[in-house]
């Protein structure tokens, strides 16, 4: 899976979005992160791994006691994708404006 698709797949899950939302308050330990959820610890670990692999969450601190945080860089690819699409549509729609007027004028003239 390419990076962009990993990012959007990671974001598609409500639990992972909730974890990301929690982390926007600042870095958290695993215990702090897992506390609000009723799911098992391995399940939380799995979600964190998906977020890490997608580059949306990073880990700091000692290996045994890591602290998790949002990694803003992970959002660069999705954001760039949106910007590219935005440019595409802006230019295409400008061309469409001209073309639509041309077509309408032709129709108007021939009726």
């Amino acid at each position, binding site marked *: 899976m390419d990076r962009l698709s990993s990012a959007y797949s990671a974001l*598609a899950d409500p639990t992972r979005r909730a974890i990301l939302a929690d982390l926007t308050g600042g870095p958290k330990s695993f215990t702090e992160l897992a506390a609000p959820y009723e799911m098992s610890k391995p399940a939380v670990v799995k979600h964190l791994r998906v977020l890490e692999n997608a580059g949306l969450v990073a880990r700091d601190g000692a290996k045994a006691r890591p602290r998790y945080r949002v990694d803003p860089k992970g959002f660069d690819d999705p954001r760039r994708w949106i910007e590219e699409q*935005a440019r595409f549509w802006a230019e295409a729609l400008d061309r*469409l404006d001209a073309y639509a*007027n041309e077509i309408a004028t032709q129709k*108007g003239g021939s*009726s």
Partner: protein
Amino acid sequence: MTGVPEKTTVQETDVQETDVKAFETSRDYAHPPELMFRLFTEPEHLARWFGPVGFTVEEARTNLKTGGAWRIVMRSPEGNQHRVTGVYEEVSPPVRVVFSWAWESEDGSLGHVSRVTIAFASTDSGCRMSLRHENLADDEARAGHGRGWTSSLESIDAYLETL
């Protein structure tokens, strides 16, 4: 004469630059939705405007029905070919058309799948077109659903803006 104004009013686009989930824009046209719907969906018309400035459309095909495929091949001013393809999810002329969207790479494999919704609403002077180009996660793209998952990303978007 049908009295069609020569100029189309363009309401400037409302680009959500920091949003990671979707691009939205709208424009007002001095033409009826019926005409604009055709310009967005018929190959002979798409071939005349689709793509950024300087691009030419070499091939445009639309099988305009739910589940039907569309594909457009463009050439950039530099001479590179760009191919984009997808499947119609909803075809409701002249009100709404929804289709998936993926860029095709050199080897024919598809890139990230997204969804485009184009809607037309009649106005006194013609119509207003609203365009939404949203991202889908891979599994959702395959399943063809997933409207709504993007909505709870708002808090994350807001947070990212503060960084």
